[in-house]
């Protein structure tokens, strides 16, 4: 039979080429015989040696910044936190005025080795103290009063992602697809659950299923829920087989702690070292909403975070991939400077964030928070979070930050 449309790919090369023009996989796979889909899935495209990768780590719930990066020499710290202030034996020195929570010992080592940067007191004007709204503001990079439908990484993908089949632009380890990934155009993304699992393969009814997917073809892929389902299923089928075999065969170059968070990072390292074309990874660690009895809870979480990140960095170093990867944390807000009466802290505003990698300019960036506030006041941010994003977009991912953020935000010195 002659091709009913010039769009019909009949060779593997054509198939990939159509994919790289940014048409969602399904847009052409409904014309494509399944052997082509599978042959593309089975074969890894050549890895780009110099591409940079961003790993975004969400600390969900609002991490208490003042007990993470501690203004240890500031007398206000102890005044505001009579029971929660960390003592000298619970701190690791960064400079004369600043120390890390001792739970972050592995990160402290990376700081001393020149691989960890800390951007202090990051926030935005007119802060919102709702978890959901403030997460949305961070993930969409909006103003406090502005509602955006797309995420900052989604807009980056709209501008930069080529979308090869079986090669998702973004991979997330969280139970929901992060808002950061939401985009104007559909891009293949792949989700692992927060514990790093995805389903198993093994299907004899693949051809019939592909038939069903084709038959349910309504309008443009992704335009309605049926289209969205169809596209997600097709993309997932292709990617799943490939990823499962990568993860199963991975020998890590460092020992990871046995936490779900570290396991997710181990998977990220496996995919990076397999040369998967994904540019952005998103990993989530939750439980930071410490309204009561904060000390132990936060200590455990920071330890999980630090141990996981350090293992990940060592693993990448052992494979000489560390120069390609930048890891950055964020949280929807910091917490109130003064502790509450439940040995916890309530929703606040600005907080520090970590940037980790061998090409990071290590040290403290931006100004420390001013703690001369009364008991009911909040911190005033000194660095806008969009300046952090602008730095990452401009100097790491190599694209026009102003186009993605809508405004010019002065970049920072951490890269």
């Amino acid at each position, binding site marked *: 039979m002659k091709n009913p449309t010039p769009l019909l790919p009949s060779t593997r090369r054509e198939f990939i080429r159509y994919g790289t023009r940014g048409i969602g996989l399904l847009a052409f796979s409904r014309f494509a015989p399944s052997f082509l889909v599978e042959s593309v899935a089975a074969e890894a495209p050549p890895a780009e040696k110099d591409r940079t990768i961003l790993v975004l780590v969400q600390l969900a719930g609002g991490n208490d910044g003042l007990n993470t990066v501690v203004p240890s020499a500031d007398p206000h710290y102890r005044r505001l936190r009579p029971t929660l202030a960390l003592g000298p034996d619970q701190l690791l020195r960064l400079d004369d005025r600043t120390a890390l929570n001792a739970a972050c010992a592995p990160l402290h080592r990376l700081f001393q080795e020149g691989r960890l940067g800390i951007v202090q007191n990051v926030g935005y004007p007119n802060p919102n103290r709702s978890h959901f709204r403030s997460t949305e503001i961070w993930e969409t990079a909006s103003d406090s009063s502005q509602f955006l439908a797309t995420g900052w990484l989604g807009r980056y993908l709209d501008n930069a992602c080529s979308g090869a089949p079986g090669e998702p632009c973004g991979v997330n380890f969280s139970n929901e697809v992060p808002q950061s990934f939401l985009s104007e155009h559909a891009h293949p993304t792949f989700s692992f659950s927060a514990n790093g699992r995805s389903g198993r393969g093994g299907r004899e009814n693949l051809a019939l299923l592909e038939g069903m997917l084709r038959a349910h073809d309504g309008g443009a892929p992704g335009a309605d829920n049926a289209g969205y389902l169809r596209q997600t299923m097709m993309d997932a089928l292709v990617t799943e087989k490939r990823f499962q075999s990568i993860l199963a065969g991975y020998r890590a170059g460092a020992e990871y702690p046995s936490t779900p968070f570290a396991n997710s990072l181990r998977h990220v390292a496996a995919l990076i070292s397999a040369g998967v074309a994904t540019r952005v990874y998103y990993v989530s660690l939750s439980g930071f909403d410490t*309204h009561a009895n904060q000390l132990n809870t936060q200590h455990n979480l920071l330890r999980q975070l630090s141990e996981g990140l350090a293992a990940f960095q060592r693993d990448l170093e052992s494979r000489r991939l560390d120069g390609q990867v930048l890891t950055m944390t964020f949280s929807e807000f910091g917490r109130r400077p003064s502790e509450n009466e439940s040995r916890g802290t309530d929703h606040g505003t600005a907080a520090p964030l970590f940037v980790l990698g061998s090409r990071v300019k290590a040290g403290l960036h931006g100004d420390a928070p001013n703690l001369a506030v009364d008991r009911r006041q909040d911190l005033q941010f000194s660095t806008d979070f969009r300046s952090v994003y602008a730095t990452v977009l401009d100097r790491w991912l190599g694209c026009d930050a102003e186009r993605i953020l809508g405004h010019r935000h002065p970049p920072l010195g951490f890269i």
Partner: protein
Amino acid sequence: MPPESLASLSPQDAWRALPAAQWDEAAARHLLQRLGFGADPAELDRARRDGPVATVQRYFARMPELPKPRLIAELEAAAPEMGRRIAGGDPQQRRLAAQDARERSREALFDLTIKWLQLAAQPAHGPAEKWLLFLSDIWVVGVQKVKNSALIYQHQDILRRHALGPAPQLAKAVSRSPAMIVYLDLQQSRRDAPNENFARELFELFTLGEGHYTENDIKQAARAFTGYRQRLGQFQFAPRQHDDGSKTVFGRKGAFDGDGVIDLVYRQPAAGTFLPKEMVRFYLSDTPLPEAYTDVLGAAWARTGHDLRELAVGFFSSRVFFAREFRGGFIKSPVHFYLGLVQDLGLSVAPLPRQVIGTLRQMGQMPFDPPNVRGWVGGRNWINSATLAARRQLINGLLQPLNENALNGDEQIELAAAYAEGVRHFTLDPARLADWARQPAAPRARLLAQRYLPEIVGTGLEHQLAAYLERGGEHGRAEAATRAALATLLESPGYQLC
């Protein structure tokens, strides 16, 4: 007659009951799918005879009872003793006692989850239990923080008892729910140190929505809820921890207590529109209705004293509910998907927590364990490569005979008890599969399509299905081919939607 479109309905007319001429099989199927978890054939027949208003009234006549599950009762009974063990003794023993308490609470939660799923799976109870799921997705508590499953059961029971009454009564009862007192830190909220967590979520996520209160309203309202305590699952009011001074909330000044603040909340117009908007999101569409529509419903609902039964009956029998825009195309939640499969395949919920609850968790919705205080966002958030893989695994599990040898001892005991009560099919009945497999491929394809995906009957897809069954028959694998064809139908986009 094709369904009318939303655009053809004025906001005034939109909430009137569906005209009898519009009530056909497709409309009845739509009602049962959205209101409950599936379109059971017997329920469908009865609904078609009764009409939409009488059908909804019947489902919302009263809430079903969920008797206290055995392990929840045992957990409650053991609470004082466990509390003593955790408080006293040497650190090692205290640690063991705390671990023991966590373990028992977890087992009790499994018991509760299975019992609830078994109740909700009954077609006649589906709509009321889905309504309860909706309310618990508004008035959220999560077991991760509450930790004690007995409080989780009690919270659901509070919602159940107030599910069809006035919303302000429900709100007041929830503010006294021990689970809520723990979940949103009222337990720690004192006269000289009010904790804002509950007051904030009361306004933002439970009753009004963002933009309808000020930060100061929250601070003042938090003072009104000081002194709310729970001890061993009993609400207690601690007058000396309660701030009985004057507060200004929503511009009104007075020495309000918590109930007083809730009464003020329900004088806000936003309290009338908030829940209807949430119903649209939970039952109808990922896209909000134009405000003109919810404004009309909100005002009408406020005039009933915010009566939940009146809201439910009005909403679910309205012309809006049956509008063309809302037919099909709505993504089933994992609980809906699971209970729908159980009903559609003629099964019972297996008393096997490890399998049943594990599957729900992988699909992204473990009952009583929402991701956070907003509950589940739903819509396309349910669907990604990991959750789709979990949906597929569930289907395959339900279509294969249960491997009873792989079960642990407790599970086998549970199963034996269920068999003794006459419950039979936890997975597809092999006799039914064999019956199907004896039919020729074309009628078999039609039968499967008609039963599980009526929208594809008569399309090219039905023929593909028949061709697939035909090929399977050639290889003498008719049963295996039928099972694989059914799995494919259930896995396809159409079955994920309702």
